């Protein structure tokens, strides 16, 4: 935790204009919903603003100065993202709309070509809908066998059962690197090593991991990694699919259109090389520029320092929440989790909790957080979720707790 001393959260907060907003006079915003989407620093807002003021043009094949500038900015963003996850080459970084689209890209291209009826795909019980439904859709088409690594009461994956499932000779193991509900950080390296030993490929849903701690695709040995810019202080509308080069080269194109082709004839086409093969049509150019600025911001702040700050804050939040009578926190102990505290209060629906907290300026999410099967497993319809990022403070956790006591008082529970 020595890094935490040099981690100046007050300075960081000044970089995020929205954090100084008062929701109502005298009620400052306490933003505890970064797992849904993060706030954006001035550097990102200005990069996108400058792009539209100075350089806006469509990318590729333009000769004029603006087209050259915008192409260079777009491709530089790709380079920055590639360095951020230690990809061997920027050509392996495909820009998509978001994590969801990245996973669908894999299921609908790699999956359609490589999976036959009866083939096994392993997921986990704590997946976000974005890593369930694409496989449901493909399964309806290909009659796949979906198997799930169970989640224990401790919020951790059951790796013994996983090894049993691997005996089914799966073709793909697609799993979350960090649960958006439980906060569980999964042992991705171990899951991938075992999958490879069993002959399966792996897809890592990094929507919650890449924003919050250092992720190195080569160290993980991941075949695919999917994540979104908007959860990592970047804009919405752009995400990434990283893939191993030979896999991406073998896969058929995803969407057809401009930019993804090398040559087009009336009755045929030849696809473009990587990464353009998977980027049909005009992409989110300004968003890519903003994404590049976001990656710069996180790199300068230091991903390890961010992870340590969040870890300390989460441990503090869990400790405070557990003091409150009637509050039950879901997920593993602080050592196994990222900055997420999902909780339930006896006799109270999470919507009512979130509504009362909102009056105190506190933004938390209430619902099943796009992980309905996980809530079914725990036998509750919904939870309230507070989540933390680099700009959150202990004072904000204290305000959360005070407000939770207000809810209890109001409902007499």
């Amino acid at each position, binding site marked *: 935790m020595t890094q935490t001393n040099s981690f100046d959260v007050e300075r960081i907060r000044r970089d995020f204009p929205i954090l100084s907003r008062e929701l109502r006079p005298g009620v400052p915003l306490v933003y505890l919903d970064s797992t849904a989407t993060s706030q954006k620093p001035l550097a990102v807002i200005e990069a996108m603003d400058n792009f539209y003021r100075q350089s806006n043009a469509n990318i590729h094949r333009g000769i004029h100065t603006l087209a050259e500038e915008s192409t260079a900015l777009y491709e530089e963003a790709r380079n920055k993202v590639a360095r951020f996850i230690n990809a061997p080459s920027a050509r392996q970084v495909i820009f998509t709309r978001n994590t969801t689209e990245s996973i669908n890209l894999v299921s609908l291209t790699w999956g359609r070509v490589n999976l036959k009826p009866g083939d096994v795909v392993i997921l986990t019980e704590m997946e976000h809908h974005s890593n369930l439904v694409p496989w449901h859709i493909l399964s309806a088409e290909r009659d796949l066998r979906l198997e799930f690594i169970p989640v224990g009461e401790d919020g951790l994956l059951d790796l013994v059962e996983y090894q049993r499932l691997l005996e089914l000779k799966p073709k793909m193991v697609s799993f979350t690197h960090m649960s958006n509900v439980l906060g569980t950080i999964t042992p991705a390296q171990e899951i991938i090593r075992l999958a490879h030993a069993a002959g399966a490929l792996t897809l890592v849903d990094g929507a919650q991991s890449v924003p919050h701690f250092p992720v190195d695709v080569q160290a993980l040995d991941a075949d695919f990694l999917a994540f979104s810019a908007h959860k990592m202080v970047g804009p919405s509308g752009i995400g990434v699919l990283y893939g191993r080069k030979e896999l991406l080269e073998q896969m058929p194109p995803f969407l057809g259109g401009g930019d993804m082709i090398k040559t087009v004839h009336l009755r045929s086409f030849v696809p473009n090389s990587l990464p353009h093969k998977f980027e049909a049509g005009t992409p989110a150019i300004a968003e890519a520029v903003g994404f590049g600025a976001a990656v710069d911001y996180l790199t300068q702040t230091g991903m390890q320092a961010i992870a340590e700050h969040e870890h300390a804050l989460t441990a503090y939040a869990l400790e405070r929440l557990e003091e409150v009578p009637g509050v039950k926190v879901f997920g593993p102990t602080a050592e196994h989790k990222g900055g997420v505290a999902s909780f339930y209060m006896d006799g109270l*629906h*999470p*919507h*009512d909790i979130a*509504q*009362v907290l909102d*009056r105190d300026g506190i933004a938390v999410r*209430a*619902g*099943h957080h796009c992980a*309905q099967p996980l*809530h079914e497993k725990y036998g509750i*319809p*919904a939870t309230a979720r507070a989540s933390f990022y680099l700009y959150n403070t202990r004072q904000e956790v204290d305000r959360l707790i005070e407000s939770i006591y207000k809810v209890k008082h*109001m*409902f*007499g529970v």
Partner: protein
Amino acid sequence: MDDLYRELIIDRYKSPVYRGYLDPHDISFEDDNPLCGDHIRIDLRVDENDVVREAAFDGHGCAISQASADLLVESILGNTLDEVRALTKDDLLELLGIELGPVRLKCALLSLKVLKAGVYGLGEASDDLVD
């Protein structure tokens, strides 16, 4: 806030008057709010003149959804099915006596959707019923 969670809402949430099942019943319907998992079931008994004589609801969800169901069911006792079919979003909001944003509006309207789908004998509860 104190408007939203006025005493009536918290009272009816914690101590509903019409929670339960009617067995047998003449009309019964249930549905979820997919957004948050709220669930409401409403049972009705009507007489030979199509007047609602008994009504009950069951389900789970937030204070707004459950209190809304309790108040709605109470309000239709003695009404004809035609009168129930004519109920609108505004009628329900008047019963609740609160103003709601777009998200919480769905919580409040679930009971009305369920009631109208049941009375119309529809296969599913469409949002059009409460627009």
